[in-house]
């Protein structure tokens, strides 16, 4: 074989090898890229699912007409949102359906909004915070339309049979109300109201009806409850080194070997990276605090994006379970924009145990600050308990809770003292009217569990009535109406 032919064959072979290499390289790069996109999409969907799970209305107010109301606490998620099956009727599903038609927006007055929601039948989801409309639409899969541009935030969203083709939005922050009307009737909302009526929820009346004072706050006539007190433990105790180290590694990762561990005289354990760029504090009360030095990178996030950052961070650092795997259902309790005048958001999360909210006399379950796309502060103060014990206690019979109206009558002096101490009211010379004055101020009454100060309450979580006035929650034994304590935020 002559030399030129050999060279030609080597060239051909090189071309074939190069071609195969190109194909293989393209396969590896594009393949990874395609998989990456799918993974990113899945991650985004997972994050959105987690957010939809935590953004829940504080309550659903249902008006059946003729001054008959009921209030559904957020624990009953089936009315707000459920499996997503076409047959199931729930608020989120119907809002999605409503959002598919062409929508026009009209601003209405406060008085008109109140009248519409008291006309015949209505259902209204009330949130404890304002949600930017864009975020609200994207989280709940509602088609965002140009006509929505006038609306900034959503604090309440409702439907009234007065206008079967409309839904109504309240933007509490900007004191605005809107009617969104489509070109067809949405009667499935009406079916939802009828379904709720057949479920036999407790009747609610405005406080004015019971007490003869000016106050529209809805309070149940009576409540049957299966909540019982149960024992709990701290999420962690400082001597549980193995569990705590495992948790600490989730913050410091590979750098864990370079972490300084300091034990304070009172037992507090501090894990520190560098000169305090990242610090994890394990408090003696079982709570954890993580602080991270903020590096400004000019990343401005919307509330929704910051919430995704927060939820993903929590998911990767302890999740919603205590270290001993006791499971609680989270909900977004409050959102504070620009909490320390450094931009960003503070998200406060609460937890539910078997659908009942767990209140804290001091602090919250989870607080997390996000700014510039980073978490700068994270505090978790979860509890650990035996889920089977709680389930078996709640499986027992239902008992009548103390009459909510008589709870106020019996404890108005105690409530007055707290309001005086917190500067909500001034000392009244008009003693005979203190009851009326206190009754006028009440903004909510609900049931739940309380994590009270352990010294007074034997390390037990107790069922309570929660009387809210302004930003103060006052706790009373659910069945005896004895005062337990209060929290002020």
């Amino acid at each position, binding site marked *: 074989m002559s030399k030129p032919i050999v060279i030609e064959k080597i060239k051909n072979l090189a071309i074939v090898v190069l071609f195969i290499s190109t194909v293989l390289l393209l396969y590896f790069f594009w393949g990874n890229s395609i998989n990456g996109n799918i993974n990113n999409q899945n991650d985004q969907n997972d994050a959105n699912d987690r957010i939809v799970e935590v953004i829940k209305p504080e309550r659903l107010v249902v008006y059946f007409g003729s001054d008959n109301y009921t209030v559904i606490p957020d624990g009953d998620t089936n009315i707000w949102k459920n499996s997503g099956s076409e047959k199931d009727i729930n608020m989120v599903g119907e809002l999605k359906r409503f959002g598919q038609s062409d929508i026009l927006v009209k601003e209405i007055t406060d008085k008109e909004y109140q009248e*519409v929601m008291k006309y015949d039948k209505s259902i209204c989801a009330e949130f404890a915070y304002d949600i930017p409309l864009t975020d609200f639409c994207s989280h709940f899969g509602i088609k965002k339309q140009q*006509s929505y541009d006038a609306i900034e935030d959503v604090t309440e969203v409702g439907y009234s049979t*007065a206008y079967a083709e409309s839904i109504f939005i309240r933007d509490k922050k900007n004191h605005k109300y809107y009617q969104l009307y489509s070109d067809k009737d949405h009667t499935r909302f009406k079916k939802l109201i009828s379904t709720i009526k057949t479920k036999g929820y407790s009747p609610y009346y405005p406080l004015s*009806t019971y007490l*003869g004072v000016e106050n529209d706050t809805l309070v149940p006539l009576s409540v049957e409850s299966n909540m019982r007190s149960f024992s709990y433990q701290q999420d962690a105790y400082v001597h549980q080194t193995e569990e705590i180290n495992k948790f600490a590694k989730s913050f410091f990762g590979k750098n864990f070997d370079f972490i300084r561990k300091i034990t304070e005289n009172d037992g507090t354990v501090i894990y520190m990276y560098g000169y305090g760029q990242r610090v994890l504090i394990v408090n003696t009360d079982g709570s954890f605090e993580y602080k991270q030095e903020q590096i400004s990178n000019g990343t401005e996030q919307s509330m929704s994006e910051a919430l995704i950052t927060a939820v993903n961070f929590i998911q990767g650092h302890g999740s919603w379970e205590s270290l001993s795997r006791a499971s609680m259902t989270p909900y977004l309790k409050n959102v504070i924009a620009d909490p320390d005048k450094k931009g960003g958001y503070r998200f406060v999360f609460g937890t539910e145990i078997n659908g009942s909210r767990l209140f804290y006399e001091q602090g919250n379950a989870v607080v997390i600050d996000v700014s510039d796309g980073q978490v700068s502060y994270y505090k978790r103060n979860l509890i650990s308990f035996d889920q089977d014990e709680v389930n078996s206690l709640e499986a027992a019979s239902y008992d009548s809770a103390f009459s909510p109206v008589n709870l106020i009558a*019996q404890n108005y002096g105690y409530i007055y003292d707290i309001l005086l101490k917190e500067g909500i009211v001034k000392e009244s010379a008009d003693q005979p009217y203190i009851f009326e004055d206190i009754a006028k101020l009440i903004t909510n009454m609900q049931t739940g569990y309380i994590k009270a100060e352990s010294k007074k309450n034997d390390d037990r979580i107790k069922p309570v009535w929660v009387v809210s006035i302004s930003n103060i929650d006052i706790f009373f034994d659910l069945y005896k109406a004895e005062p337990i304590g209060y929290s002020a935020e």
Partner: protein
Amino acid sequence: MRKLIIVLTVALSLLCSTVFAFASADPAVVLVNPVSNAVVYSNNLLISVKVTQPKTIRVHVYTEKQWVNGKWSAVNLDNLSRGVSSESFKSDPVIPAVKFTCKNNLSFFTKQVNGLSPGLYKIKIETLNSSGNPIHAMERFVAIKEKTEDQAKILNTPQSGTMQFLQNLLKSIFGN
């Protein structure tokens, strides 16, 4: 509608004033709801009584009947304005009388009475002594009516979608 409510209110006031002539009310017992001479558009009624001294009360709810065409039937509220006397009424209990004891200086008795049909109802509250005998009594009348007429629409009827769309479009082009 407004006229009917005025007529009913006047008629119920007359009925109550007759009652006050022979029954002394206990100043420590106040019927908060329903308010005096109320007209209620519902098939249920919330009774709320405020008691401001330690004592026992007994609450009765009656439906008032009148003799019409040879039988006792629900009071026709429209006839109240024609000077019908409450003395010709017969009171039938709607629920068994309910006792409530206030052990402090402020308590509320609350009860929802369900399944009421249109007509005239009487709420009687007695204060009992230690032997269980009434020493004070008060009576209030309340009319239950059916919501028959259509309420006026609260908001202006929105224009048709196309019209509104065009209007918005023109506004966006030419301004307001």
